[in-house]
């Protein structure tokens, strides 16, 4: 269930934490679901066990998972994240927007850049938009 992008700016233990958070938010992981063991993650990814233990510790600290001694690690009964059901209205309009961007010939990378700009600098974009609208 895990993937690791070595060489990215994000430490590997943090990548593992983010992937579990994302899957819990999307409902792909449900309360009570069992996570792979540390050994299974180590074997499949060839990453240091300390890194995996650290990620699981962080997830436990965040209240996302509980560890049962000798049994395994499970998604907590009430994980402290707001769930994002997979097909709400917002995701539908986002999917239509992505579809339109692709029809305009934009690559995945270009689409990601636009999303990042919209996330990081919304005020600037909306300001420009209003200014342009006012002038026209």
């Amino acid at each position, binding site marked *: 269930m895990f993937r690791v992008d070595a060489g990215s700016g994000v430490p590997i233990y943090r990548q593992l934490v983010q992937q579990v958070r994302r899957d819990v938010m999307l409902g792909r992981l449900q309360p009570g679901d069992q996570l792979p063991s540390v050994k299974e993650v180590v074997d499949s990814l060839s990453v240091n066990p*300390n890194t995996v233990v650290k990620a699981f510790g962080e997830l436990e600290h965040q209240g996302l998972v509980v560890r049962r001694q000798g049994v395994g690690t499970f998604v907590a009964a009430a994980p402290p994240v707001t769930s994002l059901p997979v097909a709400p209205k917002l995701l539908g309009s986002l999917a239509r927007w992505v579809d339109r961007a692709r029809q305009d010939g934009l690559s995945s990378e270009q689409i990601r850049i636009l999303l990042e700009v919209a996330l990081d600098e919304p005020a600037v974009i909306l300001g420009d938009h209003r200014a342009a609208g006012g002038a026209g």
Partner: protein
Amino acid sequence: MSTGLRCAGLGHRYRRKIWGLRDCSLDVPAGRVVALVGPNGSGKTTLMSMAAGLLPASTGRVEAAGGAPAQRLDRIGFVAQDAPLWPRLRVADVLEIGRCMNHGFDAAMASERIRRLGIRTRARISALSGGERAQVALTLVLAKRPELFLLDEPTANLDPLARREFLGSMFEACSETGATVLYSSHAVAELERICDYLIVLRSGHLRVAGDIDELRQQHRVIRGPDGWPDGGGWQVISQRSTAGRTTALVRRDGAQLAGPGLHDAAPTFDELVLGYLEGDAATRHEEALA
């Protein structure tokens, strides 16, 4: 927390007064997997040989697996570069020597591992490929069940599958026994997955040692107009200029923030390692004079 490897003012001077390692002080907690990085001739093998008890300290001292290396030889597993083994012996003989010379040697595990790898026990070491020879040496060291692994470029000769298999066995040993690993490699890309602690050596000097995640938090990569770090009180580890822009790896001091016009990011593992390998011009100048 117990110590996996501790050095205090450690140095070794070879004949003709060349220092292989100089004034090295570090303290690696037990159970860490340490990336040991440095250019050729930077002191990696010298440090490993001293930790293995094969080379005396000219200055300072070293503690490996909780004691002086000479007293802890049964707890230390060393695989030197290119896995040297007696070429005329057969694989079975090498395993038997391992069993006789090491108290607690897991002979069953060793023969099972060799069988699983498809290496013929009747073959002479000289008849093995580089990868097979490396696997025999690594099997010996795994079967010894040491508290401290000293591995000098252990996977350089292994194909990707053999490499993954060996790393799995090494990680299993770490999980089971809490062993510490000192792992040298030039392949910086593979170290990020394997290691959680970093030691960078250059020209016989320790450049940096520490927990990788902590080091990444303590450093920033900052990009700005040429010459921006000058006189700004930055602790610059290394910098390079291209096309009118200067990019520098800096150590972050408390709340100091990048000013306007500077682009500021957390370093990737590569940027951290390469930044310390390159170092700044002043350090290079000092080394040239030394």
